[in-house]
């Protein structure tokens, strides 16, 4: 359950629209079902009251939307940012991807977002409606008479299980209290993989990546992937669609995707959230983050505007590429 309500956010948005601070609102709109919340632009109070929602399925990170919207929208855009979204927001500012003057950012607290795939493993398919009013989610399915009560904590999205920070690093205004950076165990899964033998790791990734349908959703949702021309749209790249021959293309695609955002990835987890095949893509990104933390010192992309990412920086004392394998029992 979230600490703030839809009404609070609408009230804030309406007030800012009324006094002319902002000309439109970037927010969550209700979808066909209670769990498929979609991003939308709201221009007035009526639209907000009709369609704006805020619940446990509002996982969308709006930072990337600002790149396109700030160019189209006259005046300022009001955007609601959860703590992890503010890191992407800062990272995009560092890369000069949008004009800060055109954005009015309101930081909102987040108690962790739910993953509908996990909800379905508890209550089964056929979710007719979800009631967010109580302490728990009340999920009504087609096949059960009484709603199934599910605590959000039991169905947290993978990225929220290991939330790295409840602190907003960028905002114009904050609703609720300022949070703190959390000591998270987000690299545990990566370490588990590192402890495996190369054969086991290969089998693991072969199994995960072979499910990839090359829908490019991970790229489209990633706030770090904001190139106007993308290598994956190039028909001559050899990796623009799924190969029927073997799983090479998926491997190539995912290595390239992860490498392109290496050092700039804020670990917001959008890639895993949007993956229709539930591939744990964040494990690739986290591997890069973990490596760079270990090799070149702790670095959190987006923690401050203007910081230099590890891959566009160097020192004369860096470790040699051959030495990276001599750490601990990585390949024991």
């Amino acid at each position: 359950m979230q600490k703030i309500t839809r009404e609070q956010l609408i009230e804030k948005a309406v007030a800012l629209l009324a006094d002319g601070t902002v000309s439109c609102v970037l927010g969550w709109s209700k979808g066909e079902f209670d769990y498929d919340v979609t991003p939308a632009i709201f221009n007035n109070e009526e639209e907000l009251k009709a369609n704006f929602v805020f619940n446990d399925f509002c996982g969308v990170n709006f930072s990337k939307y600002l790149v396109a919207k700030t160019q189209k929208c006259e005046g300022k855009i009001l955007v609601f940012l959860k703590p992890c979204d503010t890191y992407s927001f800062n990272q995009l500012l560092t890369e000069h991807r949008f004009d800060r003057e055109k954005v009015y950012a309101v930081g909102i607290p987040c108690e962790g977002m739910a993953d509908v795939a996990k909800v379905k493993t508890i209550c089964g398919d056929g979710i007719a409606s979800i009631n967010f009013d109580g302490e728990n989610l009340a999920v009504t399915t087609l096949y059960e008479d009484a709603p199934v009560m599910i605590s959000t904590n039991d169905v947290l999205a993978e990225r929220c299980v290991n939330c790295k920070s409840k602190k907003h690093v960028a905002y114009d205004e904050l609703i609720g209290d300022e949070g703190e950076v959390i000591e998270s165990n987000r690299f545990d899964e990566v370490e588990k993989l590192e402890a495996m033998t190369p054969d086991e790791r290969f089998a693991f990734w072969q199994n995960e990546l072979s499910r990839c349908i090359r829908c490019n959703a991970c790229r489209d949702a990633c706030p770090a992937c904001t190139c106007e021309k993308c290598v994956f749209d190039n028909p001559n790249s050899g990796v623009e669609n799924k190969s029927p021959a073997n799983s090479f293309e998926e491997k190539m695609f995912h290595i390239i995707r992860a490498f392109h955002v290496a050092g700039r990835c804020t670990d917001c987890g959008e890639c895993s959230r949007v993956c229709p095949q539930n591939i744990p893509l964040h494990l690739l990104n986290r591997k890069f983050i973990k490596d760079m933390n270990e090799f070149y010192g702790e670095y959190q992309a987006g923690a401050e505007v203007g910081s230099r990412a590890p891959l566009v920086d160097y020192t004369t004392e860096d470790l040699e590429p051959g030495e990276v394998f001599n750490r601990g029992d990585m390949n024991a």
Partner: protein
Amino acid sequence: MQVNEYKPLIVAFCCNWCSYAGADLAGNNRLNYPAEVKIIRVPCSCRVNPMFILRAFQRGADGVIICGCHPGDCHYTSGNYYTRRRMAALFSMLDYLGIEKERTRVEWVSAAEGAKFAATMNDFVEKVVALGENKRLEDLRCKK
């Protein structure tokens, strides 16, 4: 009876200013190194886009080695420092995905180190031969 001995395919990216001349020196000094090593000359080790390495594996390379100037000696001042970080990240990721770490290497070879060049290549090829054919990152469509 014909014996099909396994011949690896090794791609070596050599910096124009040092390792390429080092390879030349190895040749001039009549030092042996395996003929399976195919050298690609690049203006700087930093020119090697990680994609080149993936591409080499895709097209059937069994090992990829990058040779550049010793840190501090880059013709362009800082190119090899970037290579060092970039390749450390990439190799670590390839290892994470289960591609054996012996298939990738970065080595600093100056123009005066013909002997080192030959020794490095001998050692690298030996390690790759021990691993056998690269099956984990090859594209069946590229197979003849």
